[in-house]
């Protein structure tokens, strides 16, 4: 009996020590796009790196990096990233690709934002109309971007529902409530529970969403900085560029590579 237990224990701990694995914390909006599933096999084949993705909110991703529990993070919150580097948690930031945010709402658009001229206008309209709105509420990159779009980000009422959850969960809630929501296009396209919702506004440069790769500072315990740099090199390679630019859902390109 004891031997059986030991065998199980050993098997499970062995899986903890694979050759050339690297842990990267990425945001839910990155994972929900489906791009990771495309890139990981190529990364393994080209670099021999076994990338283990931890899909968490931006806040948690940065926290994991600060604790030295992951070797790199991939997030989309520029201001937070700069502070992060200044605080010494990451060595630098490398922009890799961008996409955009879209404003999503019910098909019949009760608040009437479809013909707004700018993102700020659309959001102001929502605020005046007090239309039901779902916010990530979790201090993620998407959440910060959304907050920045409001004219007055203190005048909220019960119509503003902060769910404190990832992109998918927030979209689920919006779908069930027939509410408006700001999401990144990639997550939206890959989302399977759209219900009555559709994209009502996009195209404003204010909705620009930049993803960056930050290797964690090597001084933190056993962070595998060399592998983080190898991954970074691959993410800047031509292969990566072609794969990222070529990734489409419903004939729409999701990300634009800008890593150089």
């Amino acid at each position, binding site marked *: 009996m004891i031997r059986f237990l030991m065998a199980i224990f050993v098997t499970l701990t062995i899986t903890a020590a694979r050759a050339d694995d690297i842990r990267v914390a990425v945001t839910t909006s990155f994972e929900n796009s489906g791009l990771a599933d495309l890139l990981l096999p190529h990364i393994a084949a080209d670099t021999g790196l076994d990338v283990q993705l*931890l899909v968490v909110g931006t806040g948690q991703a940065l926290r994991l990096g600060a604790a030295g529990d992951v070797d790199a993070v991939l997030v989309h919150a520029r201001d937070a990233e700069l502070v992060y580097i200044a605080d010494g948690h990451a060595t630098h930031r490398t922009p890799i690709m961008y996409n955009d945010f879209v404003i999503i709402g019910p098909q019949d658009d009760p608040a009437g934002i479809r013909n707004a001229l700018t993102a700020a206008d659309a959001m102001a309209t929502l605020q005046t109309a007090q239309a039901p709105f779902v916010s990530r509420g979790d201090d993620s990159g998407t959440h910060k971007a959304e907050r920045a779009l409001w004219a007055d980000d203190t005048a909220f009422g019960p119509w503003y529902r902060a769910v404190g959850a*990832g*992109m*998918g*969960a927030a979209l689920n809630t919006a779908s069930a409530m027939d509410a408006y929501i700001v999401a990144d296009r990639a997550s939206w396209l890959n989302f399977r529970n759209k219900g009555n919702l559709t994209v009502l506004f996009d195209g404003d440069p204010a909705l620009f969403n930049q993803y960056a790769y930050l290797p964690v500072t090597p001084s933190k315990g056993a962070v595998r900085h060399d592998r983080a740099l190898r991954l970074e090199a691959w993410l800047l390679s031509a292969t990566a560029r072609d794969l990222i630019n070529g990734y489409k859902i419903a004939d729409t390109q999701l990300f634009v590579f800008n890593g150089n």
Partner: protein
Amino acid sequence: MNDILDGLRAAFWLVVSLDAELMNISLRSLQVTLTAVVISCAIGIPFGAYLAVQRFRYRRMVISIINALMGLPPVVVGLIVYIMLSRSGPFGVLGLLFTPTAMIIAQIIIITPLITSIAHQAMRELWAEYHDLLISLNTTKWQRIKTLVWDGRRNLLTAGLAGFGRAIGEVGAIMIVGGNIDNVTRVLTTAIALETGKGDFALALGLGFVLIGLSLIVNIAIHSLSRTEREGRW
């Protein structure tokens, strides 16, 4: 309603086609939970029996604390274990974070109070029955515990199965300490959370039905094992 039917359909196809990923995460679910249950029983059952037979000053308080620990929110347990196992934490050098071992540790912490409590209850009742006899026979404390555990094994099985049920469906703690990493620490419950987050309710429900099915199989298997014993000797 459609979603539920889609879910059942998804479950059926996943199982029938022996979907590789499904096999992978199901096996891991069972490995993690069964290991946790075995270890928790090894801790909780003797301890529950000990609490039943040994009188000591703070016994009532200890029992109350264990009962209270049953209400520990799994997410909180997950956070604490994460902090312990984090690179910047006390046990970071062990490198256990984001491995199935970390998940097992978290589940052990969650289910041991439950198993101990049920085991203690069963042992207490049996001890009330055996008390006079075992004392009159001059048995040692250890002999009493062994006798209670063996004679009360059917009820202790219930304790183990209760622990199993709690652990196999747990998702909060193992999400935090395991990280739901594809091929490494993804199990049925965390996969369900992931697919739900992606809005793929049919697949999430399908995985859910597979999970329920697995749990049923384990319970039926255990019960039929104990019944044959009953038929044969009792």
